[in-house]
């Protein structure tokens, strides 16, 4: 499979702060590449470097087999992006915004093309409404249309579900999957929510403090054997004592709250044992947040790098 995007030893320093530190990764054709990291981890800076908005302090970026630094215009003609919030010209209509950005992408723009794109994101009926009257979800959809109007081969989406309601998040997820499966697009999507990336990405990169922690296939990374389970009981202190005396003692992560790192398949057994130990269980929740995932990596292995390829 062809490599669409390759990043080699990329770094960015802002005075004393190193936002991105020696980052390398590759994205193959047709990938939905999840770019995960907590807020401030360096995701947005990396994405801005991919779009030539921020100049790297060191390293190389090759897109479609060409250097971004020497073939910028050619590469950007075939790249679409939504960068954080979908900020558009509020005093212009949806149609006008899309028309302007399509023109800037260097394609032949027709009314039919613009209307088709607006139709695709469900905004055809609001084509002539000013963007200032749009909800966050509508702006996000228009932002997607702007990113796709010139039919790019590579789509870069930076936190595309930020500020969306649950329906908006689901719509965005479906759109990304459709673009990948039906239109064969290569997509780089960043998020700080593991649960989101888990569903859509086939390959994942996790960064923290600007450094790569882990890169690999989603199925390998989200090993069900390392699911963090959080338990709430009527009496946590007593429950923790009982668990320490049980076969589950080796899986306990914390001394204050009840959390265990276990195989996801073992959750029914754990539930049965908790009941057998007469622990008043209020909830058993498998955790999916990135923070907990980091914690599970750290606690299981002693250091996060243990998952590196």
């Amino acid at each position, binding site marked *: 499979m062809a490599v669409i995007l390759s990043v080699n030893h990329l770094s960015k320093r802002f005075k004393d702060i190193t936002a991105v530190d020696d980052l390398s990764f590759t994205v193959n054709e047709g990938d939905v590449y999840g770019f995960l990291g907590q807020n401030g981890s360096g995701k947005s800076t990396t994405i801005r470097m991919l779009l030539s908005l*921020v100049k790297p302090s060191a390293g190389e970026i090759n897109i479609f087999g060409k250097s971004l630094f020497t073939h910028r215009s*050619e590469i950007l003609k075939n790249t679409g992006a939504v960068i954080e919030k979908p900020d558009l010209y509020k005093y212009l209509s949806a149609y006008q915004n899309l028309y302007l950005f399509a023109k800037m992408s260097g394609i032949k723009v027709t009314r039919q093309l613009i209307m088709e794109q607006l139709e695709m994101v469900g905004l055809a009926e609001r084509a002539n409404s000013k963007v200032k009257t749009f909800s966050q979800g509508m702006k996000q959809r228009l932002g997607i249309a702007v990113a796709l109007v010139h039919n790019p081969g590579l789509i870069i989406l930076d936190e595309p579900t930020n500020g969306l309601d649950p329906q908006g998040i689901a719509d965005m997820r479906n759109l990304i999957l459709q673009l990948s499966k039906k239109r064969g697009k290569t997509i780089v999507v960043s998020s700080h929510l593991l649960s989101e990336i888990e569903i859509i990405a086939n390959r994942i990169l996790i960064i923290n403090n600007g450094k790569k922690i882990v890169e690999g296939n989603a199925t390998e990374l989200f090993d069900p054997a390392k699911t963090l389970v959080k338990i709430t009981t009527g009496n946590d202190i007593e429950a923790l004592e009982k668990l320490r005396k049980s076969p589950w003692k080796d899986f306990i992560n914390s001394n204050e709250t009840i959390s265990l790192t276990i195989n996801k398949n073992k959750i029914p057994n754990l539930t049965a044992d908790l009941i057998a130990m007469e622990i008043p269980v209020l909830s058993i929740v498998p955790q999916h947040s990135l923070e907990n995932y980091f914690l599970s990596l750290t606690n299981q292995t002693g250091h996060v790098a243990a998952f590196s390829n």
Partner: protein
Amino acid sequence: MWQLFQIEVFKIFRKPRTYLAFAIITGFIFLIQLGLLLNGKEFFSFVLGSVNDTMDVDYKSLINGYAVCFAILNLLLVHVPILVALVAGDIVSGEASMGTLRLLAAKPVSRTQIILAKFSASALYILIMLIWIAFTSLFLSLVFFGSDNLMITKVTDIRIIESGDVMWRYYCAFGFAFIAMLVVAALALLLSTLSENSIGPIVATVGIVIICTLISEMEIPIYQKYIRPYLFTSYMLGWKGFFYINFNDDNQTIKGSIENLPAVLKSIGALVSYIVLFVTASVVIFKRKDILS
């Protein structure tokens, strides 16, 4: 580049703020015209000052469209930079604060093209604004007040320009004003590339123009010798030079002449140099800028 220019022009003329400038200018000019229509004699009498004591002034012929336009330009052109800054100061920083700059800069157009397109669009805005000023202040004044010889005062001199010798001077004056306003636009553009909020560059541009104008006008020898030649504002009122007509040996004005053409040309040269300097600096800064907004 042409396409980018068209897009920038479209954006400028879609902003309500753009029309605010036209509304302010129209209202201001109308007020002056109305005032001069009602109390023109008193106004020009005040302007002429002691001249009233030494010669018999025919106010009926003095108050004509050309004179009214000259009075308007004297009052207005000092303030037009504020209206220019309102649009040009916002042109990059406004996009940064709105969040559209990152979308724009991620498109397959070079940053140099973006800056040049934005500056060219500002230039077109200024040109249209000056044409509007010319229409309302000159042509409407000619309609309301008629045409006659234009009397100009320079310190203690009085110069009469024949009515047939005036119009080309106005064309040149408006052309000069266009270049002068381009300097303000270029300065506002430069400040706009340094900022990520809309208001800062507008206020800074207006502030710089006001301070430099004050320093240019101060009759302090050390300022006049060492600072004034380097301030762009020192050259911005050079448009008046087109109305300072030459005299012959018989003390008669020479039709088609300009008293000090080299000084006018020097002012134009200085202003063009400032435009090149400010636009070049804008391009260099914008090309190096990390877009984090």
